[in-house]
């Protein structure tokens, strides 16, 4: 993916209101994720260390836009802070999975031979699982906790990136400039990281960035199943799950954190759609026909 494609993505985003919406949602999510401890109206409620029995289970009102929970905490503040945990999880999962995937895919692709085959067979063994199922097995083994959730999801995702990198590396490694680097005597490690990797990484990194939406969704699923982030963390999946017990008397407890998940994931998926249209040559040709 070169400058031309990036330019055409930008053009497509400008012309398509849905892609624009995706950009706005993702940007808002990142800003809230970074700033939430400072902008939440009730910061101590957000972290979950306070309680106030006088404001228990109040329905949404101007003072508490998302209502309050059974400890009298402001749900709006908690959902805002939840964005930070989702952001941490999403960035953590994607970057760790990407690092493992790049190392495995690059080594297997560039070295080839027996070692390469073993690495890719190992990758295939992990790919034989539904990703969230594998994450459940890891999470159940590692125990609850923010860090463990990130590790569990990353360990179930890296094979996808390993395979993507592997395919990319195979299409690059026999190009003349790599041969040239080999002839002038550069070490294999140097060729791999300085020449092969920069020329094969862009699509993988874009894919990984867009996968952050799925990371938010899957982390919420793990929390709902009781093997994610422990309470009182205001993680969105955990908030939905905690609201479940009181859903008949306080629907807002589960409703608003879920809306936050949907909106965030929709944002990432709208962007993913835009990139896919540019990267998939078949769909691109129809775009050209339409004069875009």
């Amino acid at each position: 993916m070169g400058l031309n494609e990036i330019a055409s993505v930008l053009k497509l985003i400008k012309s398509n209101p849905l892609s624009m919406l995706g950009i706005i949602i993702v940007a808002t999510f990142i800003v809230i994720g970074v700033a939430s401890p400072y902008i939440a109206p009730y910061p101590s409620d957000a972290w979950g260390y306070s309680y106030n029995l006088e404001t228990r289970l109040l329905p949404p009102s101007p003072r508490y836009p998302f209502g309050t929970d059974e400890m009298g905490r402001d749900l709006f503040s908690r959902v805002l802070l939840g964005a930070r945990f989702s952001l941490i999880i999403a960035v953590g999962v994607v970057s760790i999975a990407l690092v493992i995937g790049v190392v495995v895919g690059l080594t297997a692709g560039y070295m080839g031979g027996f070692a390469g085959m073993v690495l890719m067979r190992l990758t295939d063994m992990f790919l034989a699982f539904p990703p969230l199922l594998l994450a459940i097995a890891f999470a159940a083994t590692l125990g609850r906790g923010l860090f463990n959730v990130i590790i569990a999801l990353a360990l179930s995702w890296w094979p996808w990136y390993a395979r993507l990198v592997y395919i990319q590396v195979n299409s690059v490694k026999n190009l003349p400039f790599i041969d040239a680097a080999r002839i002038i005597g550069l070490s294999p490690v140097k060729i791999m990281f300085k020449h092969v990797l920069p020329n094969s990484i862009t699509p993988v990194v874009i894919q990984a960035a867009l996968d952050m939406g799925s990371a938010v969704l899957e982390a919420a699923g793990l929390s709902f199943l009781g093997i994610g982030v422990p309470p009182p963390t205001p993680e969105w999946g955990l908030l939905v799950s905690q609201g479940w017990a009181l859903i008949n008397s306080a629907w807002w407890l589960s409703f608003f954190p879920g809306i936050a998940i949907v909106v965030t994931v929709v944002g990432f998926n709208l962007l993913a759609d835009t990139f896919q249209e540019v990267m998939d040559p078949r769909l691109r040709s129809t775009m050209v026909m339409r004069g875009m």
Partner: protein
Amino acid sequence: MPINREYIIKRALSLVFVVLGVVVVTFIITRVIPARPELLWTGPHATIEQIERARRELHLDKPIHVQLWHYFVDLFSGNWGVSWRTKMPVLPSILSSLPATIELVVSAFILATAVGIPLGISAAIRRGSGVDSVVRIFSVVGASTPVFWLALLLQLAFCNWLGLLPAAKRVDEYIAISTGFKPLTGFYTIDSVVQGNIPVLIDVLRRMFLPAVVLSLYPMCLSARMTRALTLEVLSELHVRSSIAWGIPRSRVLYKYVLRNVIAPVVASLGLSFGYTIVGAFMVEIIFVWPGIGYYTAMSLLSYDYPAIIGSVIFVAIIYSVINTAIDILHATIDPRVEL
């Protein structure tokens, strides 16, 4: 329709290796990664004697390759451990809850294709219209919605607020007993049809409706998206355009050229979304108290019942590999263009 025997044998053989690989990965997760696997296996309230016994039973005192060998032997002889929660062996519990889950997941997939494929085609033939936009937005939003959240909200709205549908379980015990319903196969829809038991059939369908709708959402969105893209591709091919120009009725063109070219790859892609759907079933089943594998696994997760969790993971992963192999073979049989 030519059946390529060589391809089927090849795929079946590779399935054996995939299943062995799945078992090896679970061995790594449960026995190599934890510092003391026997502690996970026996749970937080185990006595020292129980832990010591588990250590011997799991062969943790032997070298790692011997452990792997015993792990295989135990799995394939059906010795999957005992659940702490139910005090019952894991494998029989999973097998007995299998029909409930199959019934639910199959209904979800029927619903997904029955709605998703027509949606995708109608969006594609009116490309750029309002219908197209609605389908595209629906398919993005649907794929971004957490199933557990949707299940909770629909249950709240339809069962608790509107009172239109029952909220939980597969069948009302009172109706079942008073009409003499016998669950022979475990598939209640089939059982009630075979026994001509209309009240039970209606009750079963009413209870299955919401969980099946929730589970069908993701594969529905996926098949709508794929159908739309594939239909656009087929419609732009020259032979299709010229047959439209010749005046062959559109419905005939759609049926003869489009539907035939679209269905095989869409069905093939559903195999992959099965992985997502079955984990979704963990959450949906526990919300609708649907006594299938999902309910069993989710209850095990919530009570941290390790042998039951790992048993369910292995079982579901094996089913997933088998289904994907079956779909590959089916796909190759319907669609001769698939590379053998």
